[in-house]
């Protein structure tokens, strides 16, 4: 049986600014038993904000890599760290969210994390991908980015039964020092018995006008 939980939070700027959660909290949030995981960056789309901006491909790729690494770290805490899923507690995950987004993230914990995984014996990542769209500011720096993710894990319970859990959707992030912080998201989590292939998000994004890939002329 397919079970789907969706989460949407486009966090508005609440009165009081845009402060962020201390990024150093992240460093202590992943245990040693957590399996290795990284996203395959399928595509990088640059959206210039300055006339005539020609962001170098390597700069854009580096930014996208940084975004995907931070998202991978988030998913480690939210899906792969046994200390978290075995107890159903995800305090370390909220450090990846902007302060203004933390309440919404916590309220949507069921769809943003594996949830209560106490019945599982192991949780292993499946091949996962991301497409990163980068809004470029001045001096080759990005002001904000949106990442579309297709993530999955294979969870095995003590009887050997397997469940595929997939997380698909979009995250909006902005830089905070060397890290990227999530300030909005639209995520759908689904679970299905067996070793299922993790599919594409549905509905697939439609190409809009103007073309996202268009460069300034």
């Amino acid at each position, binding site marked *: 049986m397919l079970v789907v939980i969706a989460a949407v939070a486009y966090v508005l700027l609440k009165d009081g600014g845009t402060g962020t959660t201390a990024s150093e909290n992240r460093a202590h949030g992943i245990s040693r038993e957590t399996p290795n995981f990284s996203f395959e960056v399928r595509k990088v789309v640059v959206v210039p*904000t*300055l006339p005539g901006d020609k962001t170098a491909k390597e700069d854009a790729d580096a930014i996208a890599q940084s975004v995907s690494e931070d998202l991978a770290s988030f998913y480690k805490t939210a899906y792969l760290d046994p200390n978290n899923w075995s107890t159903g507690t995800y305090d370390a995950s909220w450090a990846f969210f902007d302060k203004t987004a933390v309440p919404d993230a916590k309220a949507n914990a069921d769809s943003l994390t594996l949830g209560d995984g106490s019945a599982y014996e192991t949780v292993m990542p499946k091949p996962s991908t991301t497409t990163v769209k980068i809004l470029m500011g001045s001096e080759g720096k990005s002001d*904000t980015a949106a990442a579309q993710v297709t993530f999955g894990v294979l969870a095995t319970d003590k009887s050997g039964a397997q469940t595929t859990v997939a997380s698909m959707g979009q995250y909006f992030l902005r830089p905070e020092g060397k890290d990227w912080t999530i300030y909005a998201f639209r995520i759908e989590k689904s679970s299905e018995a067996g070793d299922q292939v993790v599919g594409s998000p549905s509905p697939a*994004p439609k190409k809009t006008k103007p073309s996202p890939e268009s460069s300034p*002329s």
Partner: protein
Amino acid sequence: MSRKRTIAGVILAGLIAWAAISVAGDASPSHQAAATEPFLQLGVAHPAEHYPPVGTKPIVFLVLGDSTGRTTEESRISDAIHLVGFNPEQNRASILNFPRDLWVPIPGHGTTKINAATEYGGAKLMIQTIEDLSGIHIDYYAETGFSTFRTIVSDLGGVIVPVPYPIDDSHTGFNAPKGKMDMSGKVALDFVRSRYGVPNGDFSRTENQGIFLTAMLTKLRKQFASNPNAVLDWIGAGLRNTENDIPLDQLMAFSFAAGQVPSKNVNNTVVPGTIGNAGGQSIVNLAPAADQVFADFAKDGLIGKK
């Protein structure tokens, strides 16, 4: 015209809809001949207040449509004037449309038609004029013109608009039966400028601008729902081509807020008025009912109840 120009106005899922409609000005040949570059200007109404946040409090935009095509601030004439209120808590919005011929006091310039305010003192004087008149506090303003409107609508791939009654306006060339119509940029511009062949002249035109606006918002909302990160494309395009002093965080917040307001949660009201005459020119006098509308809008950025 380069592509970046053509997408210059596609900056915010909802705000652009408001801005885009604001071009329904005088169709006189002299104004048409003066058309030059498209432009879109976004700014904070009161710089001393910094940037009012888009959060839980209502936010009010003043949207101005220039009919002259001039790109310098001076000498623009705002022939379309709208206040747009967003109330994030209620996920609702209201559009308050000002007839361009509204006879009002303009600070420092006596009593005259409201559309002259930008000619005398740019958007700043228009803001002061409307705030003095209505008691409504304005947070942000957006100003655009004919060319931008056409290109925005075209870049969106047209907009399906419910034409409320048969219209045949020989001045604009707009001719359509009642019913839904897929409008290109040019046809849309003709529609929102039509004040002949409609039941109540300038009032009907102003009301039709609101109908178009709502239809456009519906389309933008659908785009946002199917692919939220499209807002980055709109903002990127806008920042490349727009005179803008609003921070990115605010633009993102605008986009998210506007992208989520259903069209059924948007109401559209024309400032109550009566046709009159002053010095041989046709004008619109404020009706007594206007005070109540202004007070309602000032309270929470909305007109009427849910």
